[in-house]
């Protein structure tokens, strides 16, 4: 088992005397096996991004346990252990522009991760060049440039190239293609498949797009208002949805091959 999430919860206390409670994530549990693509599907406010941040150690949970290869992710003592975690578990986010510090060249996004890999004296330039090639970019085209000088597709590919350098066991991809043009979406998805085929990488896709989840996952988890309301393989979710939320979601998605009734 690569990742085990048990009863993960996040409650925000807001308001004048911090009295009001907002339950962003409520007791979710799921696990991820090696080489598995799992999708966490939910609409905005469902808590899926909050869950991802907690798994990535970017947001502290209120309660619950996240274990990576048997170790409690929030109980890592020392910088070395944290670095070792990030070498194995990494994240890619939705907005390819906001993900970069606008004042630095994008090279930093790639060279930064060598801190996690600890190999000094190895051919860093060569490794970066290789990683860029894997994602279909030429080093000459993108190195030395600032984020605003590149397109959204290029920026997102560089994020994936960063993962190619690390060869993590698990990637959390939060809406990785929602801000990418339709004609290039599929090529970014293929990069994830490549990582799985070549390095047994598992991916948790966080998305609002049930169609994407259906197409790409081994398992689909439907989230609504902070809880996981249904779990299953894509075919079951689509053809035999159990939970009313899943049923409604399925009915409201604009299909391409079938036409809606009564429109």
């Amino acid at each position, binding site marked *: 088992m690569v990742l085990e999430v048990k009863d993960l919860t996040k409650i925000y206390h807001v308001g004048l005397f911090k009295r009001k409670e907002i339950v962003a994530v409520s007791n979710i549990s799921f696990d991820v096996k090696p080489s598995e693509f799992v999708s966490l599907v939910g609409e905005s406010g469902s808590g899926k991004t909050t869950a991802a941040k907690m798994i990535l150690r970017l947001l502290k949970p209120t309660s619950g346990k996240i274990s990576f290869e048997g170790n409690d992710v929030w109980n890592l003592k020392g910088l070395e252990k944290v670095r070792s975690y*990030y070498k194995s578990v990494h994240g890619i*986010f939705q907005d390819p522009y906001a*993900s970069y510090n*606008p004042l630095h060249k994008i090279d930093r996004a790639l060279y930064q991760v060598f801190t996690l890999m600890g190999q000094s004296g190895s051919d860093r330039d060569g490794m970066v060049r290789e990683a860029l090639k894997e994602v279909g970019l030429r080093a000459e085209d993108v190195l030395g440039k600032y984020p605003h000088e590149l397109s959204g597709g290029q920026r997102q590919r560089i994020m994936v190239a960063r993962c190619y350098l690390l060869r993590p066991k698990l990637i959390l991809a939060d809406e990785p293609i929602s801000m990418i043009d339709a004609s290039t979406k599929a090529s970014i998805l293929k990069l994830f498949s490549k990582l799985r085929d070549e390095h047994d990488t598992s991916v948790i896709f966080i998305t609002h797009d049930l169609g994407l989840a259906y197409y790409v996952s081994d398992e689909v988890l439907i989230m609504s208002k902070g809880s996981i309301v249904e779990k299953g393989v894509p075919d079951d979710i689509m053809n035999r949805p159990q939970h009313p939320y899943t049923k409604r979601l399925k009915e409201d998605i604009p299909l391409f091959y079938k036409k809606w009734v009564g429109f």
Partner: protein
Amino acid sequence: MRIKKLDVSLGIFVGMWLISIFGSLIYNVDPLAIVGLPEQPPSNRFPLGTDSWGRDLLALLLGGIRNSLYVGVAAALIALAIGVTIGVISGFKGGFIDSSLMLVTDVVLVLPSILIMMLVAAYLRERNPFYVSLIIGLTSWPWVARATRSQMMSLKSREFMYMSRMAGLRDMRIIVEDLLPNMASYTFMAFVLLMSGAMIAEAGLSMIGLGVTKGVSLGVILYWAQLLESVRRGIWWWFMPPGAILVALASSLLLLSTALDEYFSPRLKGG
């Protein structure tokens, strides 16, 4: 429109600097020397006239600009250093450290700085421009700390921070590489505002007789001017030039900070 604001304010400000540097070289008269008859209006010999002791007011003005600028810069640097350091640590660390530092900040904020300055100033018999800068600097940093802290806290939750955090970088490295550069423009503006405030504070201190004892500043000239009742007696060439210059300097700095704000904002939003 915004380019013009920047030009005007920068022009005035740079102009003052040049005057202060080259002015006394060109017009080489000792400000404190008695060189003429007292209370003479502006003439060919004395472009700004003389004061009640017969000293050359133009020489006094040039020397005064220089010292006022000096105090402005020095006090601003001191306040900036303290304020930014505290703000960065507080904003980044959060929790107990944040609460304690903000408590200290609030205490200093609430202390009546004029009184403190007066007490300290009265205690020090000899006050050179550096001491005056120190007094002003040590009492004017709280708003900078609070503002820096807010900037820090908002920057910390920006998405680009995830990348550096996931790269396992140490806190200090993240602060220096990711956060400070994004705060650079704000820090610069804070400096400009601090300088403006410091020059006026110095003038204020001087006007109640607690400013520099060695040398002369714009505030000191004004102090003597009001001591000898120049307003009532119509000796306008004594109080008007330093007053006007002080207002021009402070206003140009305020204008500069607004212009810089406009200049930096669109630039930061995506080149």
